């Protein structure tokens, strides 16, 4: 029997490059969240800290929504009316 590290271990996405890409996305999203909060405070756009926290949580959900969107990878790449094989 394989050991548990191999059963459940990295790379979680099957390829270390994908894990790193996801890590970059996660880091970027975190930086944007912090920046969002700064802007909200500077512009007094949020009523209080709990409103900012709620906004950051909603932001995280929005960032990761494609992970559970069944249509996300079904986006048509072909423009209607543009014949395949040309260009």
């Amino acid at each position, binding site marked *: 029997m394989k050991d548990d590290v191999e059963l459940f271990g990295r790379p979680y996405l099957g390829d270390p490059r994908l894990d790193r890409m996801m890590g970059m996305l996660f880091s970027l999203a975190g930086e944007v*969240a912090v920046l*969002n909060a700064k802007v909200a405070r500077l512009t007094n756009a949020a009523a209080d800290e709990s409103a900012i926290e709620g906004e950051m949580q909603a932001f*995280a959900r929005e960032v*990761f929504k494609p992970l559970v969107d069944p249509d996300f990878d079904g986006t048509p790449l072909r423009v209607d009316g543009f014949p395949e094989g040309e260009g």
Partner: protein
Amino acid sequence: MEYSPEGRAYQAFLVGAKAFLMDSLYPEARDAVADACRGGKAKDEAAEALRGNAQYAYFCWLEHYVQHFKYTARFGLVAEAEQQRDRLVAVLQNSPTEKLALSPADVPEYYSVVDTHQHPGNLHRDILAGPIYKASATTTQPGSTNAYGLHYRFTDVLERYVDKPLRILDLGCGFGKSALPIAQKWREAEVEGVDLSEGCLRLAAIEASVEHLDNLAYRQGDVTDIGAPDQCYDLVTSTMLLHELDSGALEDVMKEAYRVLAPGGRLVQLDFRARDPVEQFFLHGHGQRNNEPYMAAFDTFDFEHYLQSLGFSDISIEPFEEQPGATAPEFAKWRLPWTVIAARKPA
């Protein structure tokens, strides 16, 4: 520990990511794991069947890295604590000493070789581990409005096993999140918490003092060698300790608990126990993803027979509801399989 505005926003972002993992990603990952486990497949066969499944892979990635980033990101808990180091160290070093016995012991190997929960340096290498661990532990369950809520629920469960215990020992008490509610419930009892982490114990002593709990004391030590006389406690508890022990330490703790319990005394421990193969697959995977390497061995440890062999009776292993409805079959969010393991030392 206080957060900077950036740190607060960043931790809120992580809480949102964790909530997404628990209520949106988990149900899909769970379906995939249930399919993979169907037909009584062994764990490695199920893992093979899951290879390439996107939802399970995303779940695993997020479970590991939300925790990783929580500690180590630019606005993570370690960086936040570091900015306040001088102030936090001063506060911790001035913790009340009347009810705190520190005696730096040799750190056992099962403890020193693991950065438990991905906590850099584990809980014993830096005094700031106390406030960092508290900040981490109190944001683990998104939506929880009471950081100690689970522990108050466990304390209520204890009443099923004991009436009015007068001498209580809480093993692996950490920063006191389990011992404090117990001391509040039984004010007439003497409650003692034992843990290895100086940073956690100092924080625990401060919180006990703030709550005016004169009946609560803390002592630094290894739970496998409690250092207390025989038969001196009516109740021995632990919460989320056992799965952090290797098999040798786990057995030693049970032996020590039997030794220090008075005849008729109770051992009541809150930990995790999978109820079916799917839950087991997630629990053992969680152990790997969250740096809790003894989880799988603990989950399959035969408690009933081992406790019996030590002389315990009235052994029970029952699910625990960390929040109302959590053990109902229709509960769809990710959760750990909380379980109460209880036993009695014959009178």
